[in-house]
């Protein structure tokens, strides 16, 4: 399910406000089965961009191809895109509305024409994916859930439609560590099932742990597309886009400044500990050699 975006331009127009150009001539490709992060300063166009991927918005100029289908070519292409690309909004729990969790999650599949056991199967699978017990949660009102549970139910509602591409706009914002970890695990497992996952985030540590491919937006333009390794090596782009390095990279840079030859392209705490181990051991044996 390859995504190709060509020269995408979008402006927000409203009778009583100045025109706001949100995206300007943005072009990129996302291959199938990748996990891609979209990052950039607030207002750089990230949400506007992802809302084009499921055809919620249509470009003012430029084209979007999903699986080689031109979304502007016909209405049926738009409808098809909305089935294939599932978008989870920022604070998706504000869209929970049914009287119980089952019905809220079933809404999407029912709208797709599924009935009876097929619907129940979808609800079961998606609750399992987000780590919530089917029997325990199915009849509860979504409004009675904790913030983290609400978020997961909202995500399940999108997963229940089985999209080929899962797009998440700031999925971990406002969640505590435990819930954020669960959402991260959802993205990881969905990706392992062979789907594409795209997530917008400000959390560079999440990008470091999860993303393979990164798009960087700045002022509505694409500043960078490539691997996270290449991105975090590039101080100029990181600064220009108003980003920071993941905390682990920052720490390793500090250690390196103090004269220890550590690699700085490590992206998880475990990798950092291994790299620190390596350098500490090496220093010890070189010290021993000196003493001898």
């Amino acid at each position, binding site marked *: 399910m390859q995504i190709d975006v060509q020269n995408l331009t979008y402006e927000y127009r409203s009778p009583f*406000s100045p025109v706001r150009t949100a995206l300007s001539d943005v072009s990129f490709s996302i291959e199938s089965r990748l996990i891609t992060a979209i990052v950039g*300063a607030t207002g750089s166009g990230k949400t506007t961009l992802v809302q084009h991927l499921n055809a919620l918005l249509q470009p003012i100029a430029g084209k979007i191809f999903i699986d080689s289908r031109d979304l502007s070519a016909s209405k049926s292409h738009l409808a098809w895109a909305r089935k294939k690309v599932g978008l989870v909004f*920022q*604070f998706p729990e504000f869209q929970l509305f049914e009287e119980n969790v089952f019905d809220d999650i079933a809404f999407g599949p029912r709208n797709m024409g599924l009935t009876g056991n097929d619907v129940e199967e979808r609800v079961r699978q998606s609750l399992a994916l987000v780590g919530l017990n089917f029997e325990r949660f199915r009849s509860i009102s979504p409004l009675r859930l904790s913030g983290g549970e609400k978020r997961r139910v909202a995500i399940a509602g999108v997963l229940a439609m089985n999209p080929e591409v899962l797009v998440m706009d700031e999925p971990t914002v*406002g969640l505590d560590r*435990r819930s*954020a970890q669960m959402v991260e695990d959802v993205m990881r497992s969905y990706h392992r099932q062979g789907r594409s996952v795209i997530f917008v985030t400000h959390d560079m540590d999440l990008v470091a742990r999860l993303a393979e491919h990164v798009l960087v937006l700045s002022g509505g333009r694409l500043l960078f597309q490539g691997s996270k390794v290449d991105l975090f090596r590039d101080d100029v782009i990181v600064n220009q886009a108003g*980003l920071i390095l993941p905390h682990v990279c920052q*720490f390793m840079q500090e250690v390196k400044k103090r004269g220890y030859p550590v690699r700085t392209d490590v992206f998880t705490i475990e990798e950092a500990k291994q790299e620190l181990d390596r350098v500490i051991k090496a220093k010890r044996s070189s010290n021993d050699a000196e003493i001898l």
Partner: protein
Amino acid sequence: MIEVMDLTFQYPGSEGMFALRGVYFTLKPGERVALMGANGSGKTTLVLCLNGLLKPVSGRVVVDGLHAEDSGSLYEIRRRVGMVFQNPDNQIVTTTVLREIAFGLENMGVPTAEIRSRVEDAVMLFGLGEYRHTSPHLLSGGERQRLALASVWVMQPDYLVLDEPTSLLDPRGRQDIFRFLDEDDVKHRKGVLLVTQFPDEALMCDRLLLMDGGTIVYDDSPLAVFRHQDDLRRLGLEIPVKIELSNYIASKV
């Protein structure tokens, strides 16, 4: 000073589940206090009690000697305790950025010329210069968060209670908020309570309160609290990366 004494709160219909159980803490002018805890630990409930939006079952909230249970004191308490909620859309009410920032001042009866200059200061301080006449719904999430903060700050409260005010901001934006709090400190010495999920933000505060199950389990300097690594993990909280890795190095050398 904000004094919270033996605060207990139960949401109606929650059958014996107390959202707050005997909470004690103080916040003095000039202090910056971080409040962390897993979702459901009582942070937002505590925040909503601080300016009388929620009434406790027992215990007291006293702001500069004014009692929150005294309805006659509530106006003055709310003037002194500025609150910014986690989702900016829960508090944005008007149709342009300028109107939004001016809203509170107009309600307080501040003279028009003064409103204009104070609003302008807020617009510049919070980087909203391009969006003076823009409708808030056309702003990004992070920009709306800055707008909510600007609208509260402009009323010059003595205390700022911020419920995860940087969650939608990019890393630069988060740094800017702290720069602004530092500059503001120099002039106004507000008391700041910052609810956050970011351990590195807690490191920039004077004290860190940790909540679990409706009570405060730690109230100490951030470094002291972060020493309890096992407890923090059990409570589902993060330790700053640099502290965890520094401790790791120290254990090996």
